[in-house]
């Protein structure tokens, strides 16, 4: 069970991504963070707090539940619990940073894009992920990547965050001993 990112590494990575966001957007005006539930929501909140330290500005931050936009409702033996979407600001004409923990097939991102566009017309959407593990099934790429982790399809990548789990870490679990 190799731990590919520990708490320090995750912290430094998010700080680096926050600086990239600030640099690439030439400041944080018109930016808003939207995290994909559940762990993306907490990564988005951490980024908002780091960006506040860097720039002194509060950035509107929301949480998006994409369960009702998934393309596999009928395929799932058990359904994930549907949670509330909480976006308490208008996304119209804003630059939205869509935040998720792991980018894999791209299907979650596809669902998140559909869900977001039902809320309005952002001026742009940029994708932030903590881990990109490859194996895309859709033409989707991330704008900010914490770490690229080469995986096989049978592997699983487990992101743990203290807000939900008992610690911060990213674990690569190989398919053989899953």
């Amino acid at each position, binding site marked *: 069970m190799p731990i590919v990112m520990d708490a320090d590494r995750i912290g430094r990575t998010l700080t680096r991504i926050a600086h990239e966001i600030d640099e690439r957007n030439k400041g944080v005006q018109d930016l808003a963070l939207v995290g994909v539930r559940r762990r993306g929501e907490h990564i988005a909140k951490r980024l908002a707090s780091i960006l506040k330290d860097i720039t002194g500005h509060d950035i509107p931050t929301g949480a998006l539940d994409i*369960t009702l936009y998934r393309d596999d409702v*009928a395929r799932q*033996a*058990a359904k994930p619990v*549907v949670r509330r979407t909480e976006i308490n600001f208008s996304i119209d004409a804003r630059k939205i940073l869509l935040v998720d923990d792991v980018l894999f097939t791209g299907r*979650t991102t596809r669902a998140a894009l559909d869900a977001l566009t*039902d*809320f309005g017309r952002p001026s742009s959407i940029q994708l932030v992920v903590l881990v990109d593990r490859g194996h895309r099934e859709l033409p989707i790429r991330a704008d900010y990547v914490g770490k690229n982790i080469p995986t096989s399809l049978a592997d*699983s990548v487990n992101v743990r965050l203290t807000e939900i789990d008992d610690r911060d870490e990213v674990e690569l679990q190989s398919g053989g001993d899953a």
Partner: protein
Amino acid sequence: MTIQELESDTRVTSLRRKDLLGIEELSSEEIELILDTAEAMKEVGARSIKKVPALRGRTVVNLFFEPSTRTRTSFEIAEKRLSADTLNIAVSTSSVVKGETLVDTALTLEAMSPDMIVLRHQSSGAGHLLSRICKSAIINAGDGLHEHPTQALLDAFTIRERRKRLAGLKVAIIGDLLHSRVLRSNLHLLTKMGADTWVCAPPTLVPADMRRFGVTVTHSVDQAVRDADVVMLLRIQLERMEGAYFSSLREYATVFGMTEERLKLAKPDVMIMHPGPMNRGVEISSEVADGPYSVILDQVANGVAVRMAVLYLLAGGAEHEETA
């Protein structure tokens, strides 16, 4: 994220059934799941675009053998907000008036393979009959004197929204207990969730099996209302009454009708509920129905969210559970 990852990090549960026929067969965990899901659905109804693609491509038939405004429209709105294709069949315009039986009607519909059938019927157990002959998921929208599960669920949702819980609350249900499927669903639900449940009516309108539910039966409205967190009024169903259950509506209103004066015995933040349609001036006075404690319109609004939750959770059906 893969489905496996998504499942490992969310509390995965599902309804372990193909149909929703009544509250009686549901576990308290299943009830909680429906109510939690309904909270997310309520948020969808607050958006400017009140539609999500969850049931895209699914067909839902609303088959109503009894008149209904709020239940049918509530289901229809719920189905449309989930992007299902809906079909309304009202008996007055269907082949039922030509003598077709319920089974033949259902088999005919089934041949067109809908995914779900929402059924309202005057006979108790009509949903159970259909569930045995149909592959479609059957949602009971009221069967005879038996159950009306989505009404009890929306009542529970409305109570939980205000009080954050159901356990330990005193809930007094007053009115025509004998003819009420809403009562039976509510008693199953409230007792499963640990509410202190009281029922109150003239002796002629109390069903024989109330002891089975372990609820307190009283014929005194004052006793029922005293310190109640929730007072739920049930309609006097004149259309179902064939004998004389009380002398006159005026007498019923005097002895059992809910008035502002009687309500003073209840908790200061009591909730007044009514499944509708109301007989104003009989089981409930207009002052109470339109007063500050009334959550009757909240019940209607929450009905859509709860029905969305039920439709969503039943979509997919039982065949997928076998692969779990």
